[in-house]
């Protein structure tokens, strides 16, 4: 149709405008709304997942921290126990050493005392024997042979005593 008719032209314009409004209301808006809603839902879920991940990471950090703390505590306790045991060991060994030294010292002192006693006794006896011998010499006044026999007798006596 090559005839231009203003009324039909305006009718077409109105038709197009009505169609535009109708499609906007019945087609574009609902579809865009549902797509936007879906996007929002996806965003929400993503945000939720991210929050959960952060939470899990925090928990993991807390856990590993407490684990490290426990490890440290264990180490400290072991160290303390070791130190305690060492101190006790040192104390016991020191005490034993002291005791041994005391025993040794006492033994040495006893031995010395005994030795002194023996020496004293011997000196006394030698003195007595000398006095005895001098008495015998003075009583007999014999010769050299007698002296010699006396001397030997003294020596034998002394050897027996010793």
């Amino acid at each position, binding site marked *: 149709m090559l005839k231009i008719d203003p009324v039909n032209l305006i009718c077409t314009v109105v038709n197009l405008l009505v169609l535009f409004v109708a499609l906007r209301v019945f087609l574009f808006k*609902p579809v865009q709304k549902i797509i936007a809603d879906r996007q929002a839902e996806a965003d929400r879920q993503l945000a939720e997942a991210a929050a959960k991940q952060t939470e899990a990471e925090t928990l993991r950090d807390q856990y590993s921290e407490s684990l490290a703390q426990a490890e440290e505590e264990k180490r400290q306790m072991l160290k303390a126990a070791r130190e305690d045991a060492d101190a006790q060991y040192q104390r016991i060994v020191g005490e034993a050493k002291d005791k041994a030294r005391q025993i040794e010292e006492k033994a040495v002192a006893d031995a010395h005392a005994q030795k002194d006693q023996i020496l004293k006794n011997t000196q006394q006896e030698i003195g007595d024997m000398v006095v005895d011998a001098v008495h015998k010499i003075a009583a007999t006044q014999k010769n050299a042979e007698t002296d010699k026999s006396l001397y030997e007798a003294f020596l034998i006596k002394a050897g027996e005593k010793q």
Partner: protein
Amino acid sequence: MGDLAERLMEELECETVFTLPIRIPAIPQYADGIPIYESVVVTWIIMAVLILVSVLLTRNMRIDHISKRQALVELLVTKLTGLVEGMIGERGKSYVPWLTTVLLYIGVANMFGLFGFKSPTKDLNVTIALAAMSIILVEAAGIYHLGIRKWLHKFIEPVPVVAPINLMELVTRLLSLCMRLFGNVLGAFVIMEMIKIVVPVILPAV
């Protein structure tokens, strides 16, 4: 061939479906009432079909576990708007629904001939209306985005001498747009008619 030309002219003739009983004696065209052409009535049918299909397709839409129907309508809408958005760019986003509507209308109108209707785009009035609305939209968008001063300034660019040519371009662009669509549809129609004549020669049984 004369027969073909006659038939083509007959096919091109847009019939008056009914006449509104409003007589305007001052205008000879409307002296016997206002005629409503076939193109307008077919446009109404197209509108009804499009709106009905939209309403049916967008019923009970859900966010998840969507039905095949919803998937189809979402695919259609996102593809169509994506196509228009790709052409017009991010800044023209607010014009996308209108352009998609025009796209849908022209697409459906051109294919409506297959269902025994006369395609409305074969009527020059429809293509003029479409072209005029496009030009108005383009210029309105120009005024909106540039401001009236800058928009007016564009007519004397690059030199003021070309102002008449720039003004004329408004009209020629309109003419070019409406004639292009009209010519495309007319050409397609002529070719289809010729194929209809040629086919019995090659395939007599059809």
